[in-house]
């Protein structure tokens, strides 16, 4: 009995979708549909944010309802720097990394003193805190947001160009997915996932689970901030609504919809979420009335997500192959 190839739908579908995303710029410019370039650009950027959240939420089991804060901080790092006529992409990146790491460290250290419901609440509160800070910063647009005139210039590229920002975002997403695939099975990822299952046992082995969780939270914050830089450049706009708590909720929905704790789940979830939103919007403006109950259904049915469904299909195929193989072998024997 030969071993079934491990290349099933759970890997083929994400690979195919990534390939499609790689083709989008060519197709969009060939058919002269710049809208789709921006639309899929948004999908890629949200996929980066969701993948970043998955590091804390999926691997670390930290239900953060305030990750939009870091996306917003990334966006405002670009906006405020450009307001003061700094358009160097490296400066934007450095500001974002420094700010998100610091804010992530402080809020993470306080939040991790609690767990369960209180952790969800306190991350939500920190998100709101950031939201209100930027609402009241009247010199940077306040409630109305701020238009970005000087977009990030990075290594001779201008991220203000939709095509450029698309390509850069796609490259960032690919690198991030590769990194997450390795991190997930690295000792760090193992400890993190172990702490999610049973923090007490991880502590008993002699590993400080809280410190691993804090590091994951900070890393996730910084990565989310980077998605914010890209989003600000794509929209040429930053506003407090980037860090509204509904965005944090959307990000959680995306991660769970795709498959929490898996490498490609967030990407699939973002495609399904934003894609469905666009499709339902085509039929009715009240898309949330359909989407809301769908989310409730996903929660009720359990949270394996799209990746879970694909894996189940692979298992089913593999088990069928196992059942058929002995029969075929018998037939061969009797023929001989």
């Amino acid at each position, binding site marked *: 009995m030969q071993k079934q190839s491990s290349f099933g739908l759970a890997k083929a579908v994400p690979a195919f979708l990534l390939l499609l995303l790689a083709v989008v710029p060519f197709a969009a410019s060939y058919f002269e549909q710049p809208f789709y370039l921006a639309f899929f650009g948004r999908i890629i950027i949200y996929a980066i944010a969701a993948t970043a959240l998955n590091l804390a939420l999926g691997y670390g089991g930290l239900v953060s309802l305030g990750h939009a804060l870091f996306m917003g901080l990334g966006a405002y790092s670009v906006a405020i720097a450009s307001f003061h006529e700094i358009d160097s992409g490296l400066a934007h990146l450095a500001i974002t990394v420094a700010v998100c790491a610091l804010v992530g460290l402080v809020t993470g250290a306080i939040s991790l*003193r609690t767990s369960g*419901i209180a952790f969800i609440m306190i991350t939500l509160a920190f998100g709101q*805190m950031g939201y209100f800070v930027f609402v009241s*910063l009247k010199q940077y647009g306040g409630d109305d947001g701020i238009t970005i005139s000087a977009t990030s210039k990075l290594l001779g590229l201008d991220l203000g160009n939709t095509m450029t920002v698309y390509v850069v975002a796609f490259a960032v997403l690919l690198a991030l997915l590769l990194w997450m695939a390795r991190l997930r099975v690295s000792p760090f990822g193992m400890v993190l996932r172990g702490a999610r299952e049973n923090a007490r046992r991880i502590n008993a082995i002699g590993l400080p689970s809280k410190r691993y969780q804090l590091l994951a939270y900070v890393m996730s914050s910084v990565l989310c901030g980077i998605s914010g830089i890209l989003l600000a450049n794509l929209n040429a706009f930053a506003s407090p609504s980037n860090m509204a708590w509904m965005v944090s909720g959307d990000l*959680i929905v995306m991660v769970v919809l795709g498959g929490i704790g898996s490498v490609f789940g967030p990407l699939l979830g973002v495609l399904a979420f934003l894609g469905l939103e666009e499709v339902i919007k085509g039929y009715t403006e009240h898309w*949330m*009335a359909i*989407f809301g109950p769908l989310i*409730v259904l996903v*929660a009720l049915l359990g949270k394996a997500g799209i990746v879970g469904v694909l894996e189940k299909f692979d298992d089913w195929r593999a088990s069928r192959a196992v059942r058929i193989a002995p029969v075929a072998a018998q037939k061969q024997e009797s023929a001989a």
Partner: protein
Amino acid sequence: MSFSLILSQLLNGLQFGVLLFLLAAGLTLVFGIMSFVNLAHGSLYMLGAYFAATAYNHTESFTVAVVAALAGCIVVGMALERLAVSRLYGRDHLDHVLATFGMMMFFNEAARMLWGPQPYFLPVPDMLSGTVDLLGISYPAYRFAIIVVGLLVAIGAHLLMHKTRLGMLIRAGSINPQMVGALGVNIKLLNAILFGLGAALAGLAGVMAGPILSVQVGMGEPVLITTLVVIVIGGIGSVSGALYAALIVGIVDTMGRAFLPMLLRDVMSREAATAAGPALASMLIYILMAVVLALRPQGLFPARRA
């Protein structure tokens, strides 16, 4: 800063705090006893206000409006509990967040479809349209009535929890639901009643806020988040903690917004104060919450557990 100004802002804070308590009381019980994260609680508050506004437009009676809000919210709350929430009690908090986030999206959009995007108006009842004299200042009678109703509800909740059979079962159920179930108590019904009770209080808060704020889609979310802050500060699952924390948060928030920009002007330049004042004022309760959690992760007045 005169004494009467401080007193009237203090009363405003008290009134806001009482409103927060009505929302927090139901939510903290569901949090503490069923260990269920309910983000849709703000939607029940919004629905209460809409039910009341609709009933008022048809009958012009504030009493009917209150009854409609309470009854409507109990029905919606118990239906939610039976259809979805009860299936999620055993799951982890992430599923709760997900499901109630979806419900919130649905209710907001449903309200937009049913009642339209324009805000509704619920007038102050005639009987309470005047002012009352309190320690030399005249204060709107309606706002004063909110404070009275809220404190009555607080006393009622205390009596319900500590003097009745239902309250005893709820407290017992919070400590060991299996044992209560084994003694022949219908724990499912108990949970549904509890959820309905919380929904009714949210609806009551919605009606009472109606004449002060405008009744519109999305009115539930800001107040929901403030309520969550109250619950975390008070200690999850503690009704008396919710009362104290609601009053603290209500007063701190109102006083901060009223006086903080003014106070800052004394210590820094005028421009800096006008910029930082409102920002700091709107962050005040979150800072309070972060400090409380950093020092006492279980909250200021945690529920006593056997």
